[in-house]
């Protein structure tokens, strides 16, 4: 007991470091955070650019394209897939994929040097049915998943902690009210509830953030309530009450700091759940709207071409699986590290 308390956080950190699963999870999460932050620099292509000649190309396909500077007021550059090209002084002759030969003025091309207007990109994970690079879309999709994960879990954290604390600390009718309400929330299938909320609003990611946050707070509230119930019986809480400190101060300064461990675990697990929920919603078309590169939406676009271009769905699916796995492994490890009692009981 004493030894545990002595280095409670550092001992937990030590144990976390020795937990291989948790370290794998942490690496996956850190990798994802890195990818999300540096998406514009990491992505080989613009995730929105369509090269219609390169629809549904398999993984590793190497393209050969000329970049024309289109009307900048309407859209950026035009990409034209070619078989070969020749430059003659001011003009360029190229053969497109239908063996037609075209001639264009060199000024129509984007940029000055050949490296600016002639590109041979490698589509590492293939292309989708609009000829967009799947790898780039997955890299940008990480941003959406992370945003949903953190924002939705934070909303659920705030609601859950507030209601859980009220329920656990004040007990009586407040507790009954909040807990029966969470029972009702648990009674509904979560996805059905999510569909109901998102369908009621104009579909957008903002709606998804709040919908997932509102649906997932009950489990957080239960965790917090249970923890508050056990902490508030501690003698230091009784002492604080006898000292005449007000309730809010007892809650903020004395109860919450001693409830942190399970809250951190629930929050980490909640992120995985929120990412999953966003993917589900986007899959059925209620989440991110086209052309936003959301992983769930990408699986949805791919499902019609599963026979001819399975990579369209498989790679985003893999990205979701790895992300959720990462957060869950980390959450599991955190639980084992922060709450040694749980570990003894369940292992």
């Amino acid at each position, binding site marked *: 007991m*004493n030894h545990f*308390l*002595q280095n*409670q956080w550092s001992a937990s950190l030590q144990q976390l470091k020795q937990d291989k699963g948790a370290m794998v999870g942490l690496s996956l999460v850190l990798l994802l955070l890195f990818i999300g932050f540096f998406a514009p620099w990491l992505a080989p292509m613009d995730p929105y650019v369509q090269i219609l000649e390169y629809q549904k190309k398999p993984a590793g396909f190497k393209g050969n394209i000329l970049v024309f500077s289109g009307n900048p007021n309407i859209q950026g550059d035009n990409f034209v897939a070619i078989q070969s090209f020749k430059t003659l002084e001011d003009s360029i002759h190229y053969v497109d994929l239908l063996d037609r030969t075209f001639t264009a003025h060199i000024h129509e091309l984007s940029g000055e040097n050949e490296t600016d207007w002639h590109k041979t990109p490698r589509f590492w994970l293939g292309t989708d049915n609009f000829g967009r690079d799947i790898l780039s879309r997955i890299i940008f999709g990480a941003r959406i998943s992370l945003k949903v994960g953190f924002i939705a879990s934070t909303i659920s954290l705030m609601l859950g902690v507030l209601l859980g604390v009220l329920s656990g600390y004040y007990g009586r009718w407040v507790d009954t009210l909040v807990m029966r309400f969470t029972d009702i929330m648990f009674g509904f299938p979560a996805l059905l509830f999510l569909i109901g909320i998102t369908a009621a609003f104009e579909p957008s990611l903002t709606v998804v953030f709040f919908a997932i946050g509102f649906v997932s707070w009950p489990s957080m509230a239960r965790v917090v309530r249970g923890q508050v119930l056990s902490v508030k019986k*501690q*003698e*230091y809480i*009784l*002492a*604080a*009450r*006898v*000292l*005449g*400190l*007000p309730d809010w*101060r007892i809650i903020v*300064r*004395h109860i919450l*700091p*001693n409830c942190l461990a399970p809250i951190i675990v629930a929050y980490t697990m909640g992120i995985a759940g929120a990412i999953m929920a966003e993917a589900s919603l986007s899959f059925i078309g209620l989440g991110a709207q086209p052309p936003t590169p959301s992983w769930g939406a990408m699986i949805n676009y791919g499902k019609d071409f599963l026979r001819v271009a399975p990579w369209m769905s498989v790679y985003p699916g893999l990205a979701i699986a790895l992300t959720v796995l990462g957060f869950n492994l980390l959450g599991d490890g955190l639980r084992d590290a922060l709450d040694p009692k749980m570990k003894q009981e369940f292992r």
Partner: protein
Amino acid sequence: MLLNVRDLKTYFPGRKQYLFSKPEQIKAIDGVTISIEEGETLGLVGESGSGKSTLGKAIVNLVTKTGGTVTFKDFTDEKRWSNSGKIQMIFQDPLASLNPRMTVGNAISEVLKYHRIVPKYKIMLRVKALFRMVELSPDLIFNYPHQFSGGQRQRIGIARALAVNPELIICDEVVSALDVSVQAQIINLLKRLQVDQGIAYLFISHDLAVVRQIAHRIAVLYCGRIVEIGRTDEIISSPMHPYTQALFSVASESNSGSMSMISTEVANPANPPDGCHFHPRCPIANNSGNFIEACASIDPDLNEKSGGRMVACHQI
């Protein structure tokens, strides 16, 4: 009169026998009347389960009272004093009574800040002064509770209670978790603080040897009721109630066996025996299975025997 507790009752809802039946009532405190003078120590003794701790907690409103009144310095309105911290409590487990995530200095300065006991710039000075008051080095205020020994933690608990300048401190088994040598130090500290600052104590303990060192008067609690109350020297030299006699015979080895209880089973406060709660265990009332009629049927009142000495027994 500093504290006046009149006919205090605290019942807890117990088990339900059937789904729709009323829960049985556990009468943890069943009509206790005590008073404490300024600067006095009242020792409260009894076996575990007798309601000692509940009585202390009921006085400071940590458990809800079912009935009765608590008057503090002529204020009958509890709200007037219950949040002022004029009655403080120190607990048995000195580690559990300190927030593990707060430095001990913060735990004390928080109280000073909230109650505005000293101006802001004097808070640190006051915290250090309180540490000195409980014979701890003021350099320790930035440490966390786990970095202290048991005796030091209990001193910190006392310092925190002293922060609000209390006039009464309820000491709930404060030395039970400590080594005997440390016990003596804490007892001496409490005595010295009483002399210096005129603080009164309600000293709750199951250990008579400790209580007799500090208490001016002793109240004996059995099954939620006071069975005997009187000056310490009188109670020690001539315990009158058979339960007090039994308690003392258990406590002092020299006297072992001469006056013992019939059974060691403590009365169940959810379903106490009729009449005197003690009669099934009482060596006087119980004559080889036949109980004295009055003891088994009539509740004895707490009657004054001689100058302040009160006993609740039909046979005395």
